[in-house]
């Protein structure tokens, strides 16, 4: 396009910005008129659109040409279409009126006979990715990805196109419908396709851990073929490293899954990791090879940390990384520090990392701020009780020289570490006072608020804090934040040191006053309150205090004036009741997540991918891991438990082997229940029925081909009445009917046929579609673990008698009544029970239903309510969380039970914690909730 080249050359010749602008404006006017000509041909249209693109790249505003871009898209010529799509992606906004026409064109091009046109369309979709495209085109893209006829080019692009749409509009693409079919493509022989699919799977693995479960084994196999078996084509070797991008993708993908269960897969994975680490022992000479090699190594270490299967290997990594952090290459130093802080966040023994403490501290002085930042992260992660003092004092020493951009983070981290690892009260107070003096200008109020909270909460700290506060105020210079802390502390606890030398009330007031004039309004406001408190604490200096307040009664600042006037009025009031009440000592600050931590974590919350770890110590990462992958890693254990769970099962007894044609189909699951629970639909169904009756009193318990069993229950703890309904669903009458119930342990639960008028006789025979009823009375004598069993026997004409055995949904949880208590009471009891630590039951449960809509949360609420908990509103700061209280009544006593349900829709997981005054109660109700979840 000569015209375009000339135009660009023209612009480059312009000497000044004004010249350039003139030339641009002239061209814009020219293009406007050209676009109006009806005879403009495709070539010229393409040329002018390209000129517009160039001008917009230079930063000029281009607000026309959209129609022409769409016309180019509609062109039959490849090159015009290509420029058209480029212009659409560069110029158009999401709400553009022309996008509809573009979607129409895309739809057509997606079905074009030429794969080149299809590729163009796919590129365009991934570049624009609007909502309408996600809604209209997703199915076409999935078809292209799965079609055996589509070329590798198309498959690759289709996978990444889906990725863009999945990321932007997860609800519109309905990934659950196709994700299962795409997983096997991880084993595709074409490296490009595997790589694209791996990218897509990485995003989906976070949303659909269940559906994409198989991806992990595919990834391991593929990695093995690349790393160990050397199966790849030469074009994918990048500076002697085979397909580094694919290796990294797969290593990353595996970090979203728990460690494989089979020992074979584990050892394969380990040998892959081992191989990668071994290869990295020699330093490659070429930069590109080194980068590629090390990028794989770092990812492998991340995976090793995630899998947590070989601490020895990790110690070895620590040594390798130690070599990196002293490297001359800045990039390698940077990454060494970063990976080491990840390692420090998990590794059991920090010794191997502590060996490098000196080097790491040195890195705080690196020329490069990026490296300094990583060094700070690492010091924060590797800090423990042993080295806390050394690290904190190093950080404090660097504070003064640290970059402004880094200082706030540094201050927060120092504050957190000091609080976490303080073993002496004096040290905590000293460090924090120094911290606010050094970095006070660069940090939010959270830090000084936190100091006050800690001092309020720890009586042992208060005297020392007072001494230091007074010293701080008497020092020649005093930072504003330090002033605020000191003023507050003296106001609360000044009386504790009033008898010491030079600390008399008058000294305290004078020290306060001496700094007051040089501080800001907000600090003075704090000081005024302290003066007010002094009136109450030290009546002997009342006049002096009033004099101070009096001076501020005319202050220009409204806040100061108001405080002064109110405190003055309080101080001069007749009678002596109001003043002590107003200035009563502050209660200890309630424990909750430190505001410092929230502030630090807020920085990291905004990324697209879920981080697999955070900078920080082991506990915080363990906790996160518990929420994120807990469901998956618990599965193996839960599978074992599942087989022991009370599963309603029916079995056939008696009859000759040959005559079982009419026997209920339900006997099959009884045989298979131990091994393959979730796969058998009829068992899954009866499990669902049973689970439903754990939180609802009435419903169907068993639905077979011949019989249907329903349950209605009424509880008056510790007693209750259960109605069992037997319906005949067969076409022939049932004979010899018997319905009996037996408790697992008669000393804990008493279950008897109900006596009295309401009871009905079981009829001799039951006609098709007819129903029989039996009532049982239950008495809960003591906490019991296993649910009672229900035996239903009957004969269908002409065949052997059948006995079905069902689990009757009666658990200790059913004998629970809701209790309403206040939020404060709840927390007191929650903490009290938590401290005892014995009667807690916690599950992290996969809960895909949460992601769909608010109905999931609503359902969850009704489940918890239905189980006999009173929901406490507003107790939990997180509005989605549910907390409830109930009391289970048995003849042997009453047991309180508290529940906290924390749904995490983003992860599709829910954590359920139960604390009760009896361990068995917590366990039993916990497993009830688990079952309800599993059968949702």
């Amino acid at each position, binding site marked *: 396009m000569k015209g375009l*080249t000339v135009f660009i050359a023209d612009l480059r010749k312009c000497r000044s910005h004004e010249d350039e602008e003139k030339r641009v404006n002239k061209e814009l006017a020219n293009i406007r008129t050209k676009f109006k000509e009806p005879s403009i041909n495709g070539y010229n249209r393409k040329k002018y659109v390209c000129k517009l693109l160039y001008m917009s790249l230079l930063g000029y505003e281009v607000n026309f040409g959209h129609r022409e871009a769409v016309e180019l898209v509609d062109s039959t010529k490849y090159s015009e279409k290509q420029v058209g799509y480029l212009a659409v992606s560069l110029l158009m906004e999401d709400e553009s009126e022309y996008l509809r026409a573009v979607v129409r064109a895309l739809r057509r091009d997606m079905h074009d006979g030429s794969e080149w046109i299809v590729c163009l369309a796919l590129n365009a979709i991934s570049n624009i990715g609007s909502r309408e495209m996600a809604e209209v085109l997703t199915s076409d893209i999935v078809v292209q990805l799965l079609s055996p006829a589509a070329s590798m080019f198309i498959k690759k692009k289709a996978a*990444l196109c889906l990725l863009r749409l999945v990321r932007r509009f997860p609800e519109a693409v309905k990934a659950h419908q196709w994700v299962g079919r795409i997983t096997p493509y991880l084993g595709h022989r074409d490296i490009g396709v595997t790589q*694209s699919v791996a*990218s897509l799977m990485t995003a989906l693995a976070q949303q659909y851990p269940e559906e994409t479960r198989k991806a992990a084994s595919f990834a391991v196999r593929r990695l093995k073929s690349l790393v160990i078996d050397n199966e790849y084509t030469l074009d994918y070797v990048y500076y002697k490293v085979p397909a580094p991008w694919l290796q990294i993708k797969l290593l990353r993908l595996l970090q979203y899954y728990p460690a494989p269960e089979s020992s074979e897969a584990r050892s394969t994975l380990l040998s892959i990791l081992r191989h990668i680490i071994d290869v990295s022992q020699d330093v490659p000479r070429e930069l590109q090879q080194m980068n590629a090699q090390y990028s794989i190594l770092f990812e492998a270490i991340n995976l090793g940390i995630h899998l947590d299967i070989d601490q020895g290997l990790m110690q070895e990594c620590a040594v390798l990384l130690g070599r990196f952090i002293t490297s001359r290459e800045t990039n390698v130093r940077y990454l060494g520090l970063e990976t080491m802080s990840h390692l420090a966040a998990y590794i059991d023994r920090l010794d191997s990392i502590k060996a490098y403490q000196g080097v790491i501290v040195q890195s705080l002085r690196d020329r490069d701020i990026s490296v300094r930042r990583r060094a700070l992260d690492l010091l924060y992660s590797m800090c423990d009780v042993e080295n806390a003092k050394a690290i904190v004092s190093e950080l404090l020493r660097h504070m003064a020289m640290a970059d402004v951009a880094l200082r706030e983070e540094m201050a927060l981290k120092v504050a957190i570490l000091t609080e976490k690892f303080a073993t002496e009260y004096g040290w905590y107070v000293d460090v924090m006072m120094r911290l606010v003096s050094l970095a006070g200008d660069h940090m939010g109020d959270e830090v000084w608020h936190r100091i006050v909270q800690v001092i309020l909460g720890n009586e042992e700290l208060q005297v020392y804090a007072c001494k230091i506060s007074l010293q701080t105020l008497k020092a020649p210079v005093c930072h504003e934040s330090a002033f605020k802390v000191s003023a507050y502390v003296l106001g609360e606890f000044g009386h504790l040191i009033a008898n010491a030398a030079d600390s008399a009330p008058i000294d305290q007031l004078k020290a306060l006053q001496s700094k007051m004039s040089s501080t800001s309004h907000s600090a003075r406001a704090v000081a005024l309150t302290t003066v007010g408190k002094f009136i109450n604490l030290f009546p002997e200096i009342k006049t002096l205090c009033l004099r101070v307040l009096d001076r501020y009664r005319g202050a220009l600042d409204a806040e100061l004036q108001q405080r002064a006037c109110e405190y003055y009025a309080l101080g001069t009031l007749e009678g002596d009741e109001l003043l002590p009440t107003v200035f009563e000592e502050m209660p200890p600050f309630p424990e909750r997540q430190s505001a410092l931590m929230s502030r630090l974590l807020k920085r990291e919350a905004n990324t697209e991918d879920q981080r697999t770890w955070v900078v920080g110590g082991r506990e915080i990462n363990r906790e996160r891991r518990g929420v994120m992958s807990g469901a998956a890693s618990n599965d193996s254990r839960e599978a074992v438990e599942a087989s022991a769970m009370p599963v309603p099962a029916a079995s056939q007894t008696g009859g000759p082997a040959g005559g079982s044609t009419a026997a209920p189909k339900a006997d099959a699951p009884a045989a298979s229940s131990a091994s393959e629970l979730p796969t058998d639909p009829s068992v899954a169904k009866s499990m669902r029925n049973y689970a439903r009756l754990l939180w609802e009193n009435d419903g169907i318990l068993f639905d077979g081909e011949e019989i249907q069993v329903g349950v209605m229950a009424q509880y008056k703890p510790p007693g209750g009445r259960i109605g069992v309904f037997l319906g005949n669903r067969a076409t022939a009458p049932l004979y010899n009917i018997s319905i009996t119930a037996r408790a697992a342990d008669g000393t804990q639960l008493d279950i008897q046929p109900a006596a009295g008028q309401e009871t009905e006789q079981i009829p001799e025979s039951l006609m098709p579609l007819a129903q029989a009823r039996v009532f049982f009375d239950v008495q809960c004598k003591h906490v019991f673990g296993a649910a009672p069993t229900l035996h239903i026997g009957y004969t269908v004409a002409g065949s052997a008698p059948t006995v079905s055995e069902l689990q009757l949904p009666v658990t200790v949880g059913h004998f629970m009544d809701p209790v309403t208590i206040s939020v404060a009471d709840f927390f007191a009891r929650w903490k009290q029970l938590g401290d005892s630590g014995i009667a807690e039951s916690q599950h992290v449960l996969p809960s895909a239903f949460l992601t769909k809509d608010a109905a999931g949360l609503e359902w969850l609420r009704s489940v918890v309510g239905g189980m006999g908990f009173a929901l406490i509103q507003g107790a939990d700061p997180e509005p989605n969380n549910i907390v409830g209280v109930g009391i289970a009544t048995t003849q042997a006593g009453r047991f309180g039970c508290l529940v906290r349900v924390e749904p995490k829709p983003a992860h599709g997981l829910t954590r359920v914690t139960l604390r009760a005054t009896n361990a068995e109660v917590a366990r039993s109700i916990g497993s009830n909730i688990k079952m309800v979840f599993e059968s949702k």
Partner: protein
Amino acid sequence: MPIKYFFLVSRQGKLRLCKWYTTLSPKQKQSTIKHVSQLVLARKPKQCNFIEHNDCKVVYRKYASLFFIAAIDLDDNELVMLEIIHRYVEVLDRFFGNVCELDLIFNFQRAYFVLDEMIMAGEMQESSKKTVLRCLAQMDETEALENAERGWGDINLEGVARTALLSVQELRQAFSR
């Protein structure tokens, strides 16, 4: 590990190519480019190729007079991003033949097309140089068939210094494979 955005900027701060893999308003885009360019242009040669900006890590690399800049998530793999950039430069080099900044100025649209063949949705789409170049050659051929007038070879660029992006040594390495 999605790339959030990718752009090329000259030593003088002129934008040469700019690709967004996330959706932002024009205003946000502009201010991001401005800030990140400033950050990167101020870096010294011996410093590492990574710097944090807001919620992302910026990975950059300088080739002759051009900075190639990409932003990725905080826990993404920086080194491999660096090599994505390098592979892109290698492909450009082979595609244009000893590529320099001028090629990318006069053929900016083709630089976009090359990028589209290598990176989609912020992910590496194809890392094989051979495959990408074959695809691009096909594209060129199609265009040539459709289009009699082509290239910029007849334009006088005398007096304009052409500095190749890859050094001779780097080129030798790239071609030796």
